[in-house]
């Protein structure tokens, strides 16, 4: 950001202080996005997007007021500040209880993603060559009707400035992509994806991280499994043991742990839209969420995570916060205001999708901590069960208890060995019962981190990039398949 714009921003904050606000902060955000999609050996889509603007938040007469605009000149910033104040004054009319905002230490700081190769400096042709090669391997079977390979890059620059004296600059770079093969035989249509389905898996890092995904090497496996699914047996409907691979476990974590531990949900602030949470504050520190194997952490410091940053969008430093310890519910994702309401300090999880959205409590990197051994050990110890991989569908109730997930592929496990492929696997359960049935989590060697770029929350809906890491894990007495 140039010196003139920075000066205007600092002047705007000073001016709000002079106007007597209790507190104010300003976020300037500029985001670049590049997306490249190759489908069936032709470029399907390439786009470059730029978005830039400011959001101003004021606490005045005990009420919040927010406004955002892409007008970045002096009059534009003043207009946005006026709008934020107007909102706060209008809300103050309700004579609701005054909002208390626990203090944070003001900081002057800088954070940037560590990267080797800037993806925005890599020639487009080079990216296309990588995708065409992968797509060619992916398409190389008569039953593969649609082969898609894509890359996606984000660069976000932020400047946060508050009346408390914080001035924080951050630059994050995210890189990722995906492969997807759709196989068709008669009326049977099956899909396999890599690294995750339905959207790119992103990580913080440069072009080196997409090269590390090894699309060319993985494409042959993805193609083979998509074709195998066409003639596979349907996943049976029964109660059985399930082993989930990390590319499914991350959605299980996301929906049944990440969302219910958002403190704004638990306090009822999301009741009208996303819903509430069964993990209410009275359960903190004693409720058994899962078995002793289950240790879940919200970690905004995970290297290369999509939910990693230096400071959140209200200037709170990134933290590693225990959420579930030895199966017991011990922590929330929270903001300054929500944490204050339960007499705790913010876990640094206040995040906004962009300049034109309000920061709300969001996931950072919500990770299942590794256990011991390997997935091979888990399989070897399983007499009968199903191994499931790659999320395909997801659904959970408004308090985050009753869930149902579908995966792209499954394999029978019989007498400690992996058997035939199963199509259309799905399983369902109740959150604490399911995590309570966990009797094994594989070790560090098989722990994988994924970026989920499509977490939806808030009104208007904000789409957030969050991260999840997990090793394969095993669960007993799980209802699988489609009951009719």
């Amino acid at each position: 950001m140039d010196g003139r714009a920075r000066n205007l921003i600092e002047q705007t904050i000073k001016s709000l202080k002079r106007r007597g606000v209790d507190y104010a902060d300003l976020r300037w955000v500029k985001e670049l996005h590049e997306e490249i999609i190759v489908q069936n050996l032709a470029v399907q889509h390439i786009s470059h997007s730029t978005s830039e603007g400011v959001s101003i938040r004021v606490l005045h007469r005990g009420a919040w007021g927010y406004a955002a605009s892409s007008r970045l000149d002096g009059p534009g910033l003043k207009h946005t500040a006026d709008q934020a104040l107007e909102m706060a004054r209008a809300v103050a009319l309700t004579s609701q209880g005054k909002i208390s905002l626990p203090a944070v230490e003001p900081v002057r700081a800088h954070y940037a993603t560590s990267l080797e190769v800037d993806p925005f400096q890599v020639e487009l042709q080079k990216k296309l060559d990588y995708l065409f090669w992968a797509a060619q391997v992916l398409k190389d079977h008569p039953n593969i009707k649609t082969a898609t390979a894509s890359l996606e890059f984000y660069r976000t620059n932020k400047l946060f400035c508050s009346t408390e004296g914080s001035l924080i600059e951050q630059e994050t770079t995210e890189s990722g992509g995906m492969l997807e093969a759709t196989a068709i035989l008669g009326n049977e249509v099956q899909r396999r994806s890599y690294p995750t389905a339905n959207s790119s898996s992103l990580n913080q890092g440069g072009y080196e991280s997409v090269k590390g995904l090894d699309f060319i090497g993985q494409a042959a496996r993805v193609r083979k499994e998509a074709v195998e699914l066409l003639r596979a047996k349907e996943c049976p409907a029964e109660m059985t043991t399930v082993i989930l691979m990390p590319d499914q476990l991350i959605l299980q974590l996301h929906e049944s742990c990440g969302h219910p531990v958002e403190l704004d949900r638990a306090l009822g602030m999301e009741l009208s839209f996303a819903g509430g949470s069964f993990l209410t504050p009275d359960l903190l520190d004693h409720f058994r969420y899962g078995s002793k194997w289950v240790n879940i952490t919200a970690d905004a410091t995970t290297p290369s995570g999509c939910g990693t940053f230096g400071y959140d969008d209200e200037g709170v430093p990134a933290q590693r916060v225990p959420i579930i310890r030895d199966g017991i519910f011990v922590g929330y994702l929270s903001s300054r205001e929500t944490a204050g309401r339960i007499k705790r300090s913010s876990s640094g999880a206040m995040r906004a999708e962009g300049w034109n959205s309000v920061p709300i409590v969001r996931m950072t990197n919500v990770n299942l901590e590794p256990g011991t051994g390997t997935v091979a050990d888990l399989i070897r110890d399983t007499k009968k069960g199903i191994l499931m991989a790659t999320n395909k569908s997801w659904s959970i109730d408004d308090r985050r208890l009753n869930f149902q997930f579908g995966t792209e592929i499954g394999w029978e496990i019989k007498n400690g060995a992996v058997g035939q492929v199963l199509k259309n696997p799905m399983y369902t359960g109740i959150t604490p019962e399911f995590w309570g049935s966990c009797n094994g989590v594989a070790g560090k060697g098989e722990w994988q981190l994924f970026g989920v770029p499509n977490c939806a929350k808030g009104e208007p809906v904000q789409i957030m990039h969050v991260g999840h890491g997990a090793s394969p894990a095993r669960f007993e007495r799980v209802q699988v398949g489609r009951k009719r």
Partner: protein
Amino acid sequence: MLLGESRIVTALRKAAKASPADETLIAAQRESFTTFRFAGERIHQNFQEEDVTVWIKVACGGRMGVATTCSLSHEALMRAIESAVTIARVTAKQVAPAFSTAPSKTQTPKLTTHFPATVHQPLTEIVPMIQRLWTKAKSSGMSLAGSFVRGEEELAVVGSRGLTQYQPFSIAGLRLVPTKGRASGFSAQAVRDLNILDSEGLLARAMRFCRMNENPQEIPLGKYNVLLEPEAVAELLEWLGYIGFGAKQVMERTSFMAGRMGEKIMGRSISIHDDGANPEGLGVPFDYEGIPKQRVSLIDQGVASGIVYDSQFAKLHRQTSTGHAGSYDQYEGPLPTNLFLSAGDTSREELLKKMDRGLWITRFHYVSGLLKTQEALMTGLTRDGTFLVKKGKSNGAVKNLRFTQSILEAFSNVAAASKERHLVADPAQGLSAAVCPALLIKNFTFTGQTK
């Protein structure tokens, strides 16, 4: 305040004229929204936002490039055009879209979609209105959560071959969820004209559901006849639109419509169409390519009858565009966004009386239509009111239920539809909506229950 046709179109025309590409198409969407979210007798989020997004699509020698920006300044538009041209130059030659020429005035429906009163009501009147609602809920022993959204949008499309389209929109919406202990109710409305927003009526409906929803019981899982309120029907309809009625999904054969055109796939009483020009919905006269929206019959008396196209998929399928292009940076292909499900001839009250035994469902939560898209197999949960009906009357609340059900099968088992229809929309996305009746459906499958 609207920026206005002259200011937006002039900026886009100047950029299109200066573009070095063979053809240039520019769409601009400018929006200004005010949002209040409330819970526990306080407004916990409020937000005023002004934003503009400009999408640019260029063709150079049969190659295409797309770029977006968030400014209408000539410099920003030219930078985006330059970026799109750079992309086009490295892209392999492909089936380029047929860029739109200026539609004649008679082709584009005239719609009144902007009501100044919607955006002119002062905040100092809106906030007390919200407070009155939660005070009223409190006097009945309930706590009220919800949101109020109002705003305006402008959509303009300009092409280098002379195309010019512009339309302003206003939108307002109120969503209410009263709670009493674990019981909750729901009601919502989205309108173009704030004057017809019925906040008191919405509160009364939501509070009635909340009162009925106390002490929910468990019931055995299995098949039940169901009465679905329009909000529940709309969620299923929107998923059908997303997974099935677009040309891309049909071409990739993931759609339940693929290879089944002319075949009966739902009951005779079901007709579904998409119509951006129908003022009963949230009218939108043209798409992001400036093509006037056509009325497209998707299901005609149960028979698969049509899908929607943009110019690119129309060319691939040797069809003409139906006016369903999305913004140029999305790649889900053309989608129906103004869906209508045919009404029946039974009044809403009579529908309930027709039920001997079954479940009355106010709305669904977290529906996923991705289980098996070729069968429209979906799962989801009930929320904010599920009631056991015996002999035409509610016989108490039941705990929220999970369904796992082919919607093709469900829409083949429709016993009756209400003659009244309800517009269901998210006011923050004021260019799409579904208009639905309530439906009485036989043998709907429930596979799980919440605690």
